[in-house]
């Protein structure tokens, strides 16, 4: 175990040092790199993660218990895919003189997928609510 940990850590530290040296080799963009790397962490830790917790808690309150898990996971999957394709959804990038870049109708494709997910979640909610009703109205 100790040997394995050393064999992982030593090349790891060497790679980090090498990366830092490469960064220092081009000091012109260094501040910008640090701003973007640090900014990404702050955006995640101060916005994305707390928002996930809050939305998760709120949905946990409103979604019917019996179908809560699949509904939450469906919404989580939708959000994860959305972030992974945020670059084409942003409407940024591309070049006005190059029609071969950003060729798709991304808003439409994402919109259709979003409607399908919403319908599926809606169906899960309906099923869950019905199950609740049956449970509460059933003679015990």
């Amino acid at each position, binding site marked *: 175990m100790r040997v394995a940990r050393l064999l992982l850590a030593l090349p*790891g530290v060497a790679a980090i040092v090498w990366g830092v040296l490469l960064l220092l080799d081009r000091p012109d963009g260094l501040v910008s*790199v640090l701003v973007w790397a640090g900014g990404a962490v702050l955006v995640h830790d101060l916005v994305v993660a707390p928002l996930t917790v809050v939305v998760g808690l709120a949905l946990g309150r409103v979604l019917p218990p019996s179908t809560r898990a699949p509904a939450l996971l469906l919404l989580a999957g939708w959000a994860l895919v959305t972030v992974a394709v945020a670059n084409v959804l942003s409407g940024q990038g591309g070049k006005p003189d190059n029609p071969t870049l950003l060729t798709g109708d991304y808003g439409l494709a994402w919109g259709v997928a979003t409607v399908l997910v919403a319908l599926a979640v809606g169906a899960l909610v309906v099923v869950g609510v019905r199950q609740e009703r049956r449970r509460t109205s059933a003679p015990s």
Partner: protein
Amino acid sequence: MRLPRVEDFEARARGPRLTARVGTWLGVAFGICFLTGMWSHLQYDPPSWAPIGPRPASLYRWTQGLHVATGIACVPLLLVKLWSVFPRLFARPPAGVRRLALHALERGSIAVLVASALFQLVSGLLNVVQWYPWSFSFRPAHEAVAWIAIGSILVHVAVKLPVVRQAFGPEAEDDVVRSGAPGRRAVLATALGASAVATVLTVGQSVPWLRRVSVLAVRDGTGPQGLPINRTARAAGAVEAATDADFRLEVVHGDRSVTLSRADLAALPQRTHRLPIACVEGWSRSATWTGVAVRDLLELVGAPAASTVRVTSMQTRGAFARSELPAVFVEDHRTLLALELEGEPLDLDHGFPCRIIAPNRPGVLQTKWVRTLEVRA
């Protein structure tokens, strides 16, 4: 109002068993991404020891398609992994100087890990759509931070190895199941599923038979003569020189040189090859190219077929107005100074009057609007 504590978070799925599994998948994807990325950096400036040549012709295409696909696959995995350990952010530092120092060191290494991993994914995703809202130069920054990211991953695995081993070991008694909370396996399946969906929806730019499925791909593979463009003639500032009727290609070998008009080039023996063109941004496409083999042009100035050739473009903007064609590529008769694409004269945006096309080369080194070929050695 107080800061939350670790025990305030109540997701049943969270815990080392989930983190270790998502982390393993993420490590594999990130590892492939790192290796394929470094392979590309090697190709841009091949050192003499690197076994880089014209065979297999599709190697660059495969590696860079994989690079972008694994990079996109990393996004959901990284987000789920961060979610699974988010409560740890609120862990209170321990008492005692030595413990505190170790704790600070571990937190610091994790900060470097998360920052470098997020930086790689964000910069890579924006580069793919050619959006540059920063002042650093993409390629060197993406390369340097890649080393920091892969190094932090190795250190992180070394630090967490006991936890990981336990997490893959026999399961302790399961926690109390709270109704309605997603379980660990379901969360893992969601993370992997989201990765797979995001990959399939975008990978069509590199995998032709998925082109219709990949509705969110950056490119659908269309363009003039059935080929996408990375940089237009206008953007490269090559329009005027490339459309000049008095265009002459110059082939130079020491004090010997020949100048050839496009008609002269077309009169030389033509070769036709089907070759892929592949961009570091992940897109690639095979096409049929016709032109004069570079080695045949060298013969006109008495240079051996295995010579390194410096290629100069007429473009006035962009970082790749010059490229070096190593001898191992020049020797291959499939390395062409192409005049035609799919049986038609090259579109201006594909490099008219003539361009380099060679097997297994990064797209940016397939120089367009060629003005001179100069034998280096």
